[in-house]
């Protein structure tokens, strides 16, 4: 299964095509050229190295709750 995960933009390249993102403490580079006006602090949905859409704070909250519930049920 391939899951798209929400990550946070930490910094942007000068041309705003690439960003350093933070996924649960892990930092990596992502391509953000295909989304509308990426900003530092935005949560984005990442798929195979590309940002495919922006996430609202509510989306992120909901996602975290789902993940939390899953983890709780697994325990």
């Amino acid at each position, binding site marked *: 299964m391939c899951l798209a995960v929400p990550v946070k933009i930490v910094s942007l390249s000068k041309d705003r*095509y*690439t960003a350093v993102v933070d996924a649960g403490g892990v930092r990596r580079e992502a*391509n953000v*050229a*295909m*989304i*509308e006006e990426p900003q530092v602090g935005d949560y984005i949905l990442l798929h195979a*190295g*590309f940002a*495919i859409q922006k996430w609202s704070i509510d989306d992120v909250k909901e996602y975290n709750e789902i993940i939390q519930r899953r983890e709780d049920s697994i325990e």
Partner: protein
Amino acid sequence: MTGLRGFRSSLKMLKRVLAVVKGRIQGVGFRPRVYTIAVKFGLSGFVRNTPGGLNIELEGEGGDIDLFFEELRRNPPPVARIDNIDVESIPLKNEDSFQIRESASDGISEVCIPPDLATCSACIRELFDPNNRRYRYPFINCTDCGPRFTIVRSLPYDRERTSMAEFPLCGECEREYYDPLDRRFEAQPNACPECGPVLRCIDPEGKEYSGDPVTVAANLLKKGKIVAVKGLGGYHLSCNALDAGAVERLRNRKNRPDKAFAVMCSSIEQVEEHCKCTSEMKEALLSVARPIVVCARNEVQRITNKVSPDTNDLGVMLAYTPLHHLLLESVGGPIVMTSANMNDEPIATDEDEIKQILGSVADAALVHNRPIVRRCDDSVLTFVDRQPLFFRRSRGFVPDSIPLPFEGPSTLGCGAEQKVAGCLTRGDKAYLTQHIGDLSSYEVYDFYAKAVNGISSLFKIKAEIAAYDIHPGYHTTEFGKNAGLREQYAVQHHHAHIAACMAENKLTGKVIGVALDGTGYGPDKTVWGGEFLIADLSEYRRVGHFKQYPMPGGDAAVREPLRMALSYAGSNSGMKADKLPTFITDKIGKRNAAAMLQAIGRGLNSPLTSSCGRLFDAAAAICGICSHPSYDGQAPQRFQNICDLKEESAYSFEITGVEDENLILDFSEMIASIIGDVETGRGASLISARFHNTLVEGAAAMCEKISADSGIKDVALSGGVFQNSIILSRLRKLLNTRGFNVYFHRKLPPNDACIAYGQAVVALARHNMKR
């Protein structure tokens, strides 16, 4: 009142008539003219403004009454326009004089308020006459000139319903106001230094400079300072047009790096020092509307290039208020006059709005206490092949009506999203709002709603039908859906374009519609913009379009033309980054280019578009003309500007697909050739010329194919691309030589400002078919 000729022979046939006059007759000195002519022919009766038009009752001899109408038609006041006079006989009343009576203000308002009128020559003479009581008074006006639309709160047009209501007339002004033989008889904005508005020059703290405000402001301008100047429909930001440093400062402070500024001159002679003016341009510059006219610069002239760095053209206008005349006389040279607004907000109109501009942008402001009731930007036009081409229809033209090809219930046309102007119809006339701008902020949306409601209340139009774009996300669509009207029509963007052009030209049959622009929502959810339709006023069929290409990143591709270059070039090279021309990958970065092609290949946020605007972007970006535009249309603007007008060669193109269904105009060979031309070091002027020629020949070839199948010989052109005079002029000529009748806009811009009118036309045509 004047007595009549006392003696009337009983042998003469007396009669009495009621005449109802319609047209532009309010606020233009029409009733005094009626009065003087009636008195001249010894007629009794009265004249009165009513919401249904101007009523004239005349009693006297039949022959004299005929002479009266003959003279009125031959010799109306300068700015008046008679659309129609209905005359009926009524019983005699045997009055002994002719009177001008109070306005009646009930019922449906069919009269129209004139647009704002530039200061007339008689008032200018008085303005500079030291012996006149209004010497150097910045608010001088008469029945032939002065503010109208921008100061009127409601109709009929009387002083108490304008923003002059706050200025009670002094004795002398009152005498003029009530004297039917005076040039200022019922001139609603009439005023003088004793009783009228007062001009002040203030610094950023709001403190008033001492001394004559015009002289103070002029001295600041001469020193290279930026001054905000309150005009008719809003504030301008002004600086010395000959001072590169001042213009540069204005650009930096207004955060407008490249887009052209307009320049105001004191006389037509001053315009000709700097520009090449055709006779039509001169006529437009001197007309009472006083629009900005885009002219070609002279090779040798002194206005700094920083005024319009992207083009050899210059938008010029003449002074149109007494304040402008005074200011220009004191400064001497031409001054930049650009709308005072901050980041996407509408033009500033009051002292609160100017506060945030004062200090941050302007060093001082010329303010006064005559409120602006309606915001209104300057109008902009040019002439191509001696025909007008509007870029913006606003001050000086609004609220004049635009005719409709038929009658119907009152309809609200909402417009699109850019260069918006709303539209309301009544009977066979359409009333458009002033230019609103791009609905990119709440403030602009608020202006839009107020302007539409303003036209609706001014003309007492109660819309029954709403028409809006099929784009689900447009604010204007939302506005139309929420207007609560029982009948609603969603109109496709490019059909609205073609319908607008058709209706302006009174065409009601089928045409081939060529709609070329940047963006319009297609019912197939792709982005349209290079469209060939067979259309009438109610329906359309898409019979052909430009080949579609992906827009990498959606709207980001509009802001970054380089992305379109990559998209077109990539499509030509099988989406392989290593096959892209290096001069393109170097600009965007090898990794970025490869990643973007990969993303396009996966269909990641890369909607397909047939847009002609994007094709322009791609070609300009491949030539390295403009990689990061600072305003909408900058890349095409620069690309047009470098075009070698003498070059006749073109690239090749291909038309594929089936007639009458889905003809595809494919310019991929042209893109390949442009890349080749860049690689072999050919100049951008040559490439631009070939590009323009290819586009024109491609569009004409499409029309021929569509015509061969359908037999249609009438072609209507619309869309923002036709603001490009090269494309407009050459396509018109080429189609003419190939036996087509070509129709283009005459009164409205070809850009999205005509959409609301087009939407209303389509809605009315569909409504009428249903009956």
